[in-house]
């Protein structure tokens, strides 16, 4: 297939940013989206031009590194799919594809499609853990956990920390990300002990990082490559409020 790519370039020779257009003639449907970009970069390198900077690592949809907005959707048009798992068979010959970085003031652009998501790490550092040291654990089967509860906790824990929820949200809110961690841990007996304090601290950090407010639009869930549910936000609000009343 033949494609036209409109790609955001920023930093270095591109200064504060602009779209650059490229034609690609040799794309096959079996390629992944990132492999298509590899081919573009290989061409650019051949022409001694600066390749497009984009981040990727596992290319298996699990590490959350491959962040970009494709035709207006974080990770592209296919539901529940990361950019690296998106394949070119989802596009048609002759398509024009627009590619931009995740945009949010808490995710500053570093170069082209690469953004700084360290704010997410700091939210986890504010309380997204169980305070237990190595060696203090009791036998793993000492506390039975209902299968469905474990499974619901897993659903929340499956977040890959990519930031698509933030990029999708008109307010650039990080509620889905934060609440997924709060719920994952709050649903399990091991995490319940600190649940209220955790919610307070993580929300405070989220605000400090400059993420926006949640106004229940729901685009975060729709664009999340792992299908993390907005129910987590309700669960976090409950923890947060009961924490606020008791403190």
């Amino acid at each position: 297939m033949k494609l036209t790519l409109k790609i955001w370039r920023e930093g270095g020779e591109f200064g504060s940013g602009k779209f650059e257009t490229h034609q690609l003639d040799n794309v096959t449907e079996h390629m992944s989206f990132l492999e298509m970009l590899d081919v573009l970069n290989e061409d650019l390198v051949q022409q001694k031009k600066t390749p497009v900077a984009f981040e990727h690592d596992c290319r298996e949809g699990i590490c959350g590194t491959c962040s970009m907005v494709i035709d207006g959707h974080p990770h592209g048009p296919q539901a529940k799919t990361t950019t690296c798992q998106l394949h070119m068979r989802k596009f048609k010959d002759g398509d024009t594809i627009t590619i931009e970085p995740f945009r949010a003031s808490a995710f500053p652009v570093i170069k082209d499609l690469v953004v700084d998501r360290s704010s997410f790490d700091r939210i986890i550092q504010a309380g997204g853990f169980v305070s237990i040291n190595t060696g203090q654990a009791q036998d793993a089967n000492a506390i039975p956990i209902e299968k469905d509860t474990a499974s619901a906790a897993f659903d929340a824990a499956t977040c890959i920390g990519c930031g698509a929820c933030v990029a999708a949200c008109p307010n650039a809110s990080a509620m889905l990300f934060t609440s997924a961690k709060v719920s994952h841990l709050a649903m399990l007996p091991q995490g319940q002990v600190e649940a209220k304090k955790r919610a307070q601290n993580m929300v405070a950090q989220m605000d400090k990082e400059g993420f926006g407010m949640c106004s229940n639009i729901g685009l975060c869930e729709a664009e999340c490559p792992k299908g993390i549910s907005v129910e987590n936000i309700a669960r976090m609000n409950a923890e947060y409020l009961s924490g606020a009343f008791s403190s």
Partner: protein
Amino acid sequence: MSIKLNSNIPSGPLADKWTQYRSTMNLVAPNNKRRIEVIVVGTGLAGASAASTLGELGYNVKCFTFHDSPRRAHSIAAQGGINAAKNYQNDGDSVYRLFYDTIKGGDYRSRESNVYRLAEVSRNIIDQAVAQGVPFAREYGGLLANRSFGGVQVSRTFYARGQTGQQLLIGAYQSLSRQISLGNVQMYNRHEMLDLVKVDGKARGIITRNLLTGEIERHAAHCVVLATGGYGNVYYLSTNAMQSAAWRAVRRGALMANPCYCQIHPTCIPVSGDYQSKLTLMSESLRNDGRVWVPAKQEDAKAIREGKKTALDIPEGDRDYYLERRYPAFGNLVPRDVASRAAKVACDEGLGVAPTGLAVFLDFAAAIERYGKSEAISSGIKNPSKEKITELGTAVVEAKYGNLFEMYEKITGENPYKTPMKIYPAIHYTMGGLWVDYNLETNVPGLFALGEANFSDHGANRLGASALMQGLADGYFVIPYTIGQFLSGEIRTPNIDPNSPEFAEAENAVKERLNKLVSVKGDQSVESFHRRLGKIMWDYCGMSRNADGLKSALKMVRELREEYYKDVFVPGTADEFNPELEKATRVADFMELGETMIMDALNRNESCGGHFREEYQTEGGEAKRDDENYAYVAAWEYNSWEEGPIMHKEELVFENVELKTRSYK
């Protein structure tokens, strides 16, 4: 000069070694710990668990990763599970059995004492992970569920759907985050270690490049722990992501042990085109339920390759379930090396089923039917229709492997519930790695290696679900103790000065290397060299090897390396964010490492585990070991490339298991 390799195995009976050793080890008092600095490179399972635990103990930890966050380490991609000798299933498992399975699975090329310790601490890992909130799969009674992996006859694998690595890494990452928030660990993201610094023979720091700015930095500490993962990416196409740091330590005198032991995973999605960047694993857990087969007749295979027939057109009688046929005792659950080679044999015989001829089927139809029938019985449906059975069975299979099936469909565009998956072996794991003793210390004092980066536990072949176990064992339960053996001698050492001549020399060497790469300004991309290197390695030092092939590969890799420094093109400069330059430094290492792997494969005149030399096989085509001459660890010392690396030997002593021909028949 010959280096004496002392494995420092404690004396005493196998089962008591670790307990006795631990209680007699030198300790570092809390007030001294606060003064002592430790560098940990890597935040995968091994690095994150080590950094957080060392932080909890009170050491001053500086932790590095080249990723943008510690959570992105490649451990995140592990799918199938983690072993532990919990015997929760009451099926006869024990520490000894896990030890024995691992030694046997590794084809008797690992150290008994290390493996026994691994089996011992495996139980604590599960406890720790559950306490951190890792949501492992559970049964209806609320207790933990298990499944089986290849090469064993018990169910000891704990799992979190097909995302076990993700969940365990998030657990370790959370612990690490807590230590960062408490100020015990200082985290450096997007920092790549480019060199190791030795002062008076001891590891005392690293040189890093800040990947955002290109700035070269010096970091000093009392000791250095490397947990930088494996080197499977030498092959270009693999299930791994791109990384290499161990080699940088080898350049500074650490030894690389058994580099030719690479694991080829039997069930990956086959290669589909030249542009391909990555091979995707389909977890070994699928072999619990999937049956591997090829058409028995070449003409059927040909018709499938040409798209004239599909798997569904081949009647039962014309299928060859070759693993079940050749290995009735273990069937589809033979170890990885055995399953991979059997797939290659089938494809070499012209029975492959993808257009490239390089694929076999992994079929779930029988499992869907079996589960469907049992679901029908348990939900009281009498005389269920075939459709109903399929529907019920599909739901069970989906609950078990849904995310893997979905991933398969996204990549291939085919529905594996309806037609069998096509799979083929791919490079997956490297058993070789930095040589370490019982303390996980390399031959360079103060330099430790954990996780996939060391060679210690898996011999010539790793059993499924044992890498996660090893990474976490090393990080949570071994290094926190053994590091004290070294550091207890350092309590009077003041903080290491990063302004010493040794640091300056290392910094200059790094800058020179980077400048050399950006100033070639040739015509070929880094990627194209990497791809060519990978092809040579796969063709001649891959699933099966022979002396002639290896010799010619050696020559090809040397020529490629020379060409690299004449014609590679790295855009931009060394003083900026430059992903091409990052790649270029890694590929430069891979070429040297590749050469050492070939030398190792050439030296080892036997077949064992993942190392299959065509000259050494039984009549039935199985690997033929030579315990008389090769029951040793080959540890390679970096040397000038004119003379080639120098090999040192650690003889393996087996006091507790009898060396047998591995049989899964």
